[in-house]
C-alpha cells in the first residue's frame, strides 16, 4: 500500500475571481465610473428599484444598466424604453455574475461617457453573495412579502452588502413582517450596512435611497 501524503494547500477559494474583480474596481476608479451591484430574490423588485433610481438620478448622472437576471430580456426592454443604455450579460444559466462576465459587459460600454452603472444580478440570495463582481457598492433588496426571516436563512449576503433596501413596505399591514427584527439581525451581521425602507409602487422612501446613492457616487467621483 502506498503511503498517503498530507499536502498543505491553504489557498482561498475564488481568489482568481477576486483578483479580477479588484482590477475591474481599479479601472472603474480611474474612469470615475461607479458600479452598483444590485442583488435580491426574483420578484423582490430589482428592476423596479433600477427604474426608480434612473428617474431620480438621470439628470445628475449618465447611467447604464448591465442586466443579468435570467428573465432579463423583459427587464432590459423596460430599461431601454427609458432611453438608457443597457448591456445584456449571458450567464448561460449561471446562478450569479462573476468578474469575468462583468469585464465583458464593460467592454461593450463607453466608460468615458458614463458616471453610474447599475448591475442587476441574477435573482438569487446565495451565489451572488459569494462572488465579487468588481462593483464599488453592493446592495441587497428584500421585499416585505418574502418574509422577515431572510437574514436568518441567507446571512452571507447581508454580511457583504453596503446597503439593504426593504421594498414593498406598502405590504407591511398585510404581511407578518417585523422590520425591527430584520434591522437587529442585519446589523449584527454587518454593523456598517445602511438600511432603507421604501415602496417602488408608492415611491415612499425612494428619495432617501436616491440621496444616499447620489452621495456615494459624488464622493467616489471626487476621490
Amino acid at each position, binding site marked *: 500500500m502506498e503511503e498517503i501524503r498530507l499536502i498543505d*494547500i491553504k489557498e482561498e477559494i475564488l481568489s482568481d475571481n477576486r483578483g479580477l474583480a479588484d482590477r475591474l474596481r481599479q479601472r472603474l476608479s480611474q474612469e470615475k465610473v461607479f458600479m452598483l451591484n444590485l442583488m435580491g430574490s426574483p420578484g423582490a423588485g430589482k428592476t423596479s428599484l433600477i427604474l426608480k433610481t434612473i428617474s431620480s438620478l438621470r439628470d445628475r448622472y449618465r447611467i447604464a444598466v448591465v442586466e443579468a437576471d435570467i428573465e432579463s430580456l423583459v427587464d432590459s426592454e423596460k430599461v431601454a424604453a427609458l432611453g438608457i443604455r443597457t448591456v445584456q450579460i449571458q450567464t448561460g444559466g449561471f446562478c450569479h455574475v462573476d468578474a469575468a462576465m462583468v469585464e465583458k459587459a464593460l467592454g461593450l460600454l463607453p466608460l468615458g461617457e458614463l458616471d453610474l452603472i447599475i448591475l442587476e444580478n441574477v435573482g438569487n440570495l*446565495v451565489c451572488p453573495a459569494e462572488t465579487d463582481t468588481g462593483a464599488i457598492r453592493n446592495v441587497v433588496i428584500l421585499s416585505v412579502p418574502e418574509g422577515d426571516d431572510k437574514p436568518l*436563512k441567507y446571512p452571507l449576503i447581508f454580511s457583504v452588502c453596503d446597503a439593504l433596501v426593504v421594498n414593498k413596505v406598502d405590504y407591511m399591514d398585510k404581511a407578518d413582517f417585523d422590520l425591527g427584527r430584520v434591522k437587529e439581525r442585519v446589523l*449584527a*451581521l454587518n454593523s456598517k450596512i445602511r438600511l432603507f425602507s421604501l415602496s417602488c409602487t408608492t415611491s415612499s422612501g425612494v428619495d432617501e435611497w436616491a440621496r444616499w446613492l447620489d452621495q456615494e457616487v459624488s464622493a467616489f467621483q471626487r476621490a
Partner: protein
Amino acid sequence: MTKSIFQIVLKHARANNVEKVISVNLEIGALSDLQDEWIQRYFDRLSRGTVVEGAKLKTNRVPAVFRCNCCQEQFRVHSLLEEDLSCRQCNSRDVTLISGREYRVQSMEAH
C-alpha cells in the same frame, strides 16, 4: 465556486506529482449557504478523468465569531440559523460579526 476548488486542487496535485487525490479538506465559514452534497456532486463531474477523480471533499465548518459591543465578550455561533445572536455573557443584542466567511482549501490527502 466548485470549479475554483477543483482548479486549486488540480494545480497542487500536479505541483506535487500526485498519482491520486484521496480527499480534500475545505474550511468553510458558518455564513456560507453552500451545501456539501452539491459541491461534491459538481466536483465529481469536474474531476472526471483527472488524478482528482473520486476524491472526497471534507468540509470543516468554521463557526462565526461575534463580539459584543457592550462588554466586548467574543463568542462563537455554529449555525447562523440559530435565532439567538445575543451576547453569551451580558445578553446584549448589540453585537458585531468578526469572522465566519472563510472559504479555503486547507489541504489534501494523496498518494
